[in-house]
């Protein structure tokens, strides 16, 4: 059971009205790994994530989560089953306080087992001390980086098995992106399985284990980051020299063995 992938996406198609956006997307995400979906603007990354969340209906194909077919399941039931979300644009509830945002994040956890909430809250506060300091502050009044921490904390507090993160760095300042990088590295350490969509390829590749490259609604390349090369990136993403150089350096860093991977290898052993 544990060696079946946590998430299996089989040939899903989706669209809006007469327009088909996804023409058969397939990939798998093993337990405890981080998958990255990369592609140009409009490639269908967000629509794919919305199909996984259940917000956009799939027209054909199937999504298996933890061995269960969830293709027709409502978004809220998927959350109860163990999916967590950091949606595009972060989408914290601006008029609720930090703590209220977290309490809502733990909605299904609290229904399942209310006694676990306090420990989960403390866990998030320990991981993101800024949220403890600002627990009574309205979420909308925080900086972009802090809101990103809150969005991630709000997903983590529900103790999800899988966390879907869509373009967390979009619209953040370079400083806030660094902050976010630290946050996501922190999340990776929890051993949670993650699917990450990122426009900033250099940033994204430094986080993920497996890269899925998307082009006009299909996955054109899937493979471990360690085996990715500049040529593949250039072919499928058509990125120019500048990005190529940036991606190259991130790859270099990612392809060297790192403590995180060793830790993960130990855990799975």
């Amino acid at each position: 059971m544990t060696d079946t992938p946590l998430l299996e996406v089989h040939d899903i198609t989706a669209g809006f009205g007469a327009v088909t956006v996804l023409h058969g997307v397939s990939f798998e995400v093993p337990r405890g790994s981080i998958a990255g979906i990369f592609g140009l603007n409009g490639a269908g990354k967000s629509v794919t994530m919305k199909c996984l969340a259940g917000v956009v209906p799939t027209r054909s194909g199937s999504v298996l989560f933890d061995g269960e077919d969830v293709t027709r399941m409502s978004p809220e039931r998927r959350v109860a089953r163990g999916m967590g979300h950091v949606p595009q644009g972060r989408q914290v509830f601006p008029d609720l306080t930090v703590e209220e945002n977290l309490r809502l994040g733990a909605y299904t956890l609290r229904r399942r087992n209310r006694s676990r909430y306090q420990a989960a809250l403390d866990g998030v506060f320990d991981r993101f001390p800024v949220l403890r300091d600002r627990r009574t502050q309205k979420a909308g009044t925080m900086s972009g980086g802090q809101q990103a921490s809150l969005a991630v904390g709000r997903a983590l507090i529900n103790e999800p098995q899988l966390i879907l993160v869509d373009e967390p760095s979009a619209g953040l300042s370079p400083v806030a992106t660094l902050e976010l990088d630290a946050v996501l590295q922190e999340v990776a350490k929890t051993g949670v399985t993650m699917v990450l969509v990122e426009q900033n390829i250099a940033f994204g590749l430094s986080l993920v284990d497996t890269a899925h490259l998307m082009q006009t609604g299909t996955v054109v390349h899937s493979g471990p980051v360690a085996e990715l090369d500049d040529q593949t990136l250039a072919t499928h993403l058509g990125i120019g020299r500048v990005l190529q150089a940036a991606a190259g350096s991130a790859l270099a860093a990612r392809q060297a063995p790192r403590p995180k991977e060793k830790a993960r290898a130990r855990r799975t052993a």
Partner: protein
Amino acid sequence: MLQVLVLGLMNGGIYAIFALGVVLVYRGTGVLTFAHGEIGTIALYFAYFLVAKVGLPWSIGALGAIALAALLGGAFEFLFVRRMVNADPVSTVVLTVGFGLFLLAAEFFFFGASPRNLEPPTKHYFFVIDNVVVRPWQVAALVLALVLGFGLQSALRRSDFGLGILAAAQDPAAVRLVGVPLSRVTLTVWSVGAGLSGLAALLVEPSVGVIAPGYASELFVIGLAAAVVGGLTSLPGAFVGGVVLGIAQSASSRYLGSFGVSGLQYIVVLTILLVVLLGRAYAPEVRRRLATPHAGAPSTTTAGAAA
């Protein structure tokens, strides 16, 4: 003067309860409802049916009326609003108008055009302030509107589901992604909003004593205006809007009544509505002009700021 105030407050409480229902539904689902007036009327007819025809006590009739109103609101959400999530909000608004007309037709069909009497629970309890007869249910309406207007929000914050209702008003899509069942939120909001309409209709009816088709809609329209005056998304604003319009109305009929123009009070309500809307539209511009004295030469100001 006091007379005007007392009369205005008594009516204002009723408008405020209607306005609260409107705001609740608008915040929760983004739909401006025009159906809740007729939901209130038909609820009153149901109370009339239970009390005058079946012979049940007034309190049971009142509970039945509120329950029916809530049921109608919930059913409307479940059968129609829910299927319109991907449609233009305007079409949903039109649907609420249609539902109101349907209920109006049902009132004519079942009860006819002639007014019906629903005896108030008591005629004996009242007090007089400056020659105005004030009845307990009028005070109840005002107190209830005050409590709901200023207390409902913090009451909602206490429960997870209530927090979900507040969050759904800010971002319905994100609410589903934290696991809150959005359909239950919208169902609740429509039921409670409609129940409030039934309650408002019940609280105003004893002062009039008769029910006719379309009865509560006249009041509801002012409640709707009160909600808009209060900002449409603010529960305290709904209360303030209701009271302001109630007082404006009683003042206009007191001081302008001698002109003998029928419907003058609606003109006053409409004028206030217009002034508030225009004021809100132009406020940012006015504030900007006041803040930058040299608004006539913006290029120099920005250049100065950039330097």
